[in-house]
């Protein structure tokens, strides 16, 4: 085959493309229908031994994103017993400090009684048009309060105010966080429990 290639280079090239063409049919025949539209099929098509059709038919099929996948940040809140939303954020400002394009604005709340600053953000906004999805805010947050989202279907017709995410858009429940990043969430919960134990 090697010598053949040397003599008839173009023929050999055409052979390769022909091979690709026939592969699409052969693989479909061998693997059957479950190759498409099933999660296993999608997984199989991204393995090292995949041949034939490589296409993921987005939007009907969707390539699953890995746990570490990062799009935009969001703020995690714990759900209280009476449905109150307890933000984990303490407005310490580390995320705003570490943010490379400086797209985080935090305004710390003041306690209405004492007038002293209280450990909660009164306002928090992130300019999603500037955010570079680097994940530093989530990485260096000491309270596990800000995390990176997985939702990438964000296209919109307008920008400006609507891309300036305030607390209302940023807050998401901890159950959501656990659903997109189960491994990280359980590891962090264990670490927090470990930290809290000696005091108790």
């Amino acid at each position: 085959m090697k010598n053949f290639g040397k003599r008839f280079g173009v023929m050999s090239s055409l052979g390769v493309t022909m091979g690709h063409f026939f592969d699409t049919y052969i693989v479909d025949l061998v693997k059957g229908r479950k190759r498409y539209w099933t999660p296993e099929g999608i997984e199989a098509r991204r393995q090292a031994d995949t041949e034939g059709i490589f296409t993921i038919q987005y939007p009907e099929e969707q390539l699953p994103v890995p746990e570490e996948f990062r799009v935009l940040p969001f703020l995690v809140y714990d759900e209280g017993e009476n449905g109150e939303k307890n933000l984990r954020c303490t407005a310490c400002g580390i995320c705003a400090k570490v943010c490379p394009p400086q797209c985080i604005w935090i305004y710390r709340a003041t306690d209405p009684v004492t007038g002293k600053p209280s450990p909660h953000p009164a306002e928090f906004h992130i300019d999603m048009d500037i955010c570079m999805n680097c994940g530093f805010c989530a990485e260096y947050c000491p309270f596990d309060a800000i995390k990176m989202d997985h939702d990438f279907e964000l296209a919109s017709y307008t920008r400006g105010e609507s891309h300036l995410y305030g607390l209302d858009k940023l807050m998401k429940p901890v159950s959501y966080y656990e659903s997109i990043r189960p491994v990280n969430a359980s590891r962090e919960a264990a670490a927090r429990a470990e930290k809290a134990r000696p005091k108790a």
Partner: protein
Amino acid sequence: MSPEGLSKPEYQVPQEMQNQVALTTLDRLYNWSRKNSVWPMMFGLACCAIEMIAAAASRYDLARFGMEVMRPSPRQSDVMLVSGTVTKKMIPQIVRLYNQMPEPKYVIAMGACATSGGPFKEGYNVVAGVDKFIPVDVYIPGCPPTPQALLHGLMTLQKKIEGQSLKEVSWYQKGPGEPIPVPVLGPDLIDMRKAAVIREKSQPVADPEKAAVAVDEAAQNGELPAKEG
């Protein structure tokens, strides 16, 4: 060819004639055919262009949307994917390309940079959003948006096309549309539509306080006799 999206759901087509007959309106037919052959311009600026190429390649395959015909010429394209950071040096060319595109034309700002300058917003050579110059139809956040996010953005554009009406679209109105004036590269980027504002705001300061500061500075440099007191 699937009549999905073509037939108007109000009209009932008998079971045996479905997939052969579609009852629809002219608007719907017109938009249905347009939205399934949106040809993008082969035009990459930065990082996002690589994701655009990935979206056009076999894994995500833009051809499924009738968008595989990437045209390097603006004359044959329907949508301009502004995929990457728009710099001041490049914006005259982008505006010119946009002006050369025939109607109907659409613009997608892909990624944070095209939308507003993104992480490079503070840079001195970066335009803070391509929409300062050309009208943008769809914004796709992300840095860079993954190919799937781009496909979602293109589908958002398709929805927009679906909603347009022949009666209202600008390209069937009387008279030609006005081209956008091409910005000029001066000491900084000059948007000719804002020439008056630029001239006005660049005038030497008349503010007495600032003028006093200027006089003090000049005095320190020995250019003027120092003020007394």
